[in-house]
């Protein structure tokens, strides 16, 4: 099969469409997560989401939408905990992180029959994307784009200087909740693509590369979206030809690109 033929196969087209919309959502949210120092919190939401996967399989509900609702709840809980400066917050996030995962595993153990798809939620599988999944992905991506567009300046002020945001009369609490919900949105989309264990990499690697080249926050967002699309496309192609897991191959592509950029930079600096 040539490369062109691969793209004409039905499952590959769906995989790419889902990948593009996930790229847009997490390309927008990733820079905000990194700048807000919320990578650990994003990790907590994504791993806790496994509880939602387990719940869906246990009750026989549709996995994508059940996980989405479940993650919204987790995000709301984490948002209400992080809104105050609690000193034990890292411990609590860690607890939600691991408790969510163990809940998912136990519910799966209790689920009737053997479910071969378990691994696909941990490490991603674009191959099993359904039409319904794609519709939800489009809705989620649009939600993230519109919400970020509406509150872009407010988010910028909040990230840059929270006290100043409060003094300016910005509704900091409302924004905090909105932001956590958006993080949950993009995480659930990413679970399909790379799996919940690899979500953090997808949110951070493009941002690190983009920060090296971009001199404004808006450009970092655009560049992150493009890099995500690039990594997902190339990762999918590599995984198809070499028969590797899609999620891991996508992240490997991203990691190698990041290392390449970093070493090239060091090399150029030395020879200047």
């Amino acid at each position, binding site marked *: 099969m040539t490369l062109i033929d691969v793209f004409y196969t039905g499952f590959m087209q769906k995989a790419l469409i889902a990948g593009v919309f996930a790229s847009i959502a997490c390309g927008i949210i990733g820079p905000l997560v990194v700048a807000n120092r919320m990578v650990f919190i994003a990790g907590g939401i994504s791993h806790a989401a496994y509880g939602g996967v387990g719940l869906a399989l246990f009750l026989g509900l549709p996995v994508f939408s059940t996980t989405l609702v479940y993650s919204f709840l987790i995000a709301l809980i984490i948002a209400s905990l992080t809104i105050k400066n609690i000193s034990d917050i890292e411990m609590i996030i860690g607890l939600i992180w691991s408790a969510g995962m163990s809940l998912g595993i136990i519910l799966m153990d209790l689920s009737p029959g053997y479910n071969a798809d378990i691994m696909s939620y941990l490490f991603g599988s674009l191959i099993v994307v359904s039409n319904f999944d794609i519709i939800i992905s489009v809705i989620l991506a649009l939600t993230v784009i519109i919400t970020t567009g509406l509150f872009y300046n407010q988010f910028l002020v909040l990230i840059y200087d929270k006290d100043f945001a409060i003094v300016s009369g910005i509704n900091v609490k409302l924004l905090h909740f909105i932001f956590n919900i958006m993080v949950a949105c993009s995480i659930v989309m990413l679970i399909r693509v790379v799996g919940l264990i690899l979500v953090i990499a997808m949110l951070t690697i493009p941002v690190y590369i983009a920060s090296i080249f*971009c001199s404004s926050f808006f450009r*970092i967002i655009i560049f992150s979206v493009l890099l995500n699309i690039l990594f997902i496309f190339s990762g999918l192609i590599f995984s198809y030809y070499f028969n590797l897991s899609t999620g891991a191959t996508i992240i490997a592509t991203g990691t190698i690109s990041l290392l390449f950029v970093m070493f090239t930079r060091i090399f150029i600096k030395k020879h200047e």
Partner: protein
Amino acid sequence: MQNPIEVKNLWFRYEKAWILEDINLTVPERDFIAILGPNGSGKTTLLKLLLGILSPDKGEIYIFGKKPQNAFKHLGYMPQRLFHSLNFPVSVMDVVLMGKIKAHQIGGFYSNKDRNDAENILKQLNLWELRDRLMTSLSQGQRQRVLIARALVSSPDILFLDEPTSNIDERGKSGFFELLKELNKNITIVVVSHDIGVISKYVKSVACVNTKLFHHAKPDISREMLLTAYGSVLESCCNLELLTHDTPHKIYSLDKSDIK
């Protein structure tokens, strides 16, 4: 006309111990008040209460007769430093426009008027040439001027500054306070500082905070004021270095035997 700041029987604590006890303070129109005190005295906490960032446990705060949270149109705030955001890629212009955010409660972009106002304030503070530079590429002094511009661009009635001169050299400090003196012709200014030196030449009144507050109408840095503000910590570590050299006759007379 109501007073810009009115504080009545204010009590505040983070945990068990009271950080501020029974604070009463009235700041009249066009006052230039310095809130002085050593580290941990509660002066920054008081500032955050006045700005509505924190809420009092007991007592009341009024900004032009309104609660601080509802008075944000009157407030301009220059923070001491931006701790978390050193690598954040924003230009000088972006930061100054942040001061205009209050006009946009939900979404939208900055208007041409916002940009004109930002341009005017940048020119006024001699920062116009730096407008496209990233904040990360500026010196401490320049960054502080940008933060002042951000606080002023919304034309506030009260300007709050938290340790504005902590990273500026002696000559820079005088220039900085000359600027504040000029601004003070139109607006009320509140400066939090642990640096009594240069400030004493410019301010109209002084509030010494060390859990309790002592308000002095005239900026006459007296021995009792220093003792109230710094006395308790002189024992463990000498804070006299913090008081710079503009009022040496008042500082050198202090030693440990004096305090007891």
